Each structure stands twice: as structure tokens, then as C-alpha cells.
């Protein structure tokens, strides 16, 4: 069955450093991979989408890579700020228009 794995341990990082999160998937070949942010008690908020033919995507201080050989995506937050503290969810998809299947998420805590 399809599996999506994200680091279950919280990532504690100092303000100004780069946070790197990992998303691994098995038993399927997604054509797209999305990253969402979720704050406590709130719905997921879309951040970035990367396609299988794109190696890297950037948006402001965020960077996503997608390695279909390793079946892995890396999500980077550069120059992290306390406001970046949240849980980050990855969602590999086989098609762009169907349901989203999320990983369990990785919590990021940025301390001043």
C-alpha cells in the first residue's frame, strides 16, 4: 500500500538557521508533490507544489526538491523565524486534481 513518511520528531531550530524536512514515499510514483503548513487547530494552508520533472522549486524563503529516484522530497526553510513554527505536511499525488493524501507532518519549532 502507499506510504508517506515524515520525521515524527519535532525539529527544534534557532532563529536564522535553515530547517530541512524530509518526506519519503513508497509503493507509488507521484507526478506532483505538495507541501502544506498547519497551525494548531487550523486547516492546512498550501505552500508549494513541485512536479516530477522539476528538481527544485522556490518561493521566498522556502525551497522544495523532488527526487523521484530516491522517492524523496526535501523542504527547506531558510533564515527561519519564530513565525515559521508550525507543522509541515507533505502530500505526494499521482494526479493534480484528486484527493490529497498527507503524511503525518513534522513539527518545526523556531526559537529566538
Amino acid at each position, binding site marked *: 500500500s502507499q506510504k508517506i513518511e515524515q520525521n515524527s520528531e519535532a525539529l527544534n531550530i534557532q532563529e536564522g538557521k535553515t530547517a530541512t524536512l524530509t518526506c519519503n514515499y513508497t509503493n507509488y510514483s507521484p507526478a506532483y508533490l505538495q507541501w502544506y503548513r498547519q497551525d494548531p487547530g487550523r*486547516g492546512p494552508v498550501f505552500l508549494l507544489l513541485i512536479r516530477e520533472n522539476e528538481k527544485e522549486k522556490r518561493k521566498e524563503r522556502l525551497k522544495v526538491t523532488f527526487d523521484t529516484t530516491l522517492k524523496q522530497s526535501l523542504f527547506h526553510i531558510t533564515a527561519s523565524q519564530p513565525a515559521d513554527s508550525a507543522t509541515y505536511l507533505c502530500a505526494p499525488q499521482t494526479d*493534480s486534481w484528486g484527493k*490529497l493524501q498527507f*503524511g503525518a507532518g513534522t513539527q518545526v519549532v523556531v526559537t529566538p
Partner: protein
Amino acid sequence: EPEVTQTPSHQVTQMGQEVILRCVPISNHLYFYWYRQILGQKVEFLVSFYNNEISEKSEIFDDQFSVERPDGSNFTLKIRSTKLEDSAMYFCASRPNKKDTQYFGPGTRLTVL
């Protein structure tokens, strides 16, 4: 900026009771979804809805669940006879077309006692 809205924000009900969770998707959106998140667990897909019919549903979405778009603005999720294990956050999402991403509402916290 347009947002998906959900009501109520918190619903408390007794086991066996029916509940209706309401969502108002963004106005020009055509695809609608319900997800749930049990406390401490991942966000799980329940059902997708397009052109006034269900396009896909998960194993969780059994006969106790139903969805409806009763008018041009609301999208509802009904649970006929709630169980303790239905306690969760329920998120509605919508998207304007197949290529755009999904926009999530703030959620309804359902507590079944």
C-alpha cells in the same frame, strides 16, 4: 481574499445523534472535499464532490456519512448516527478547477460523548 468558511467551529453531540457540518466553499470553486483529522493523527481524505455527485470516497466514508450541496453556496457533511470514534476535526476544502490547489477551511471540531 476569499476563504472557505465552516460552521460551527465546535460541535458537541451524544453518541447516536445525527450531526450536520456546514461549509461554504469559495464562490467560483467547482470541486469540494471533506477531510478529517483525529487528534494527534494525520489529515485523512473522506470524500470528493463534483458536478453534484461524489467523485471519490475513502473507506472511512461508509453508509453513516453523506454529503450534499443543497444550494449554490453550501456544502454539508452529515453523520447519521455518531460514534465515539467520529470525534475529530473535520475540514472542508474547495478548488476552482483541476489544476489549482485545494483551499481548506478552518475546521469544525466534533466531540462525541
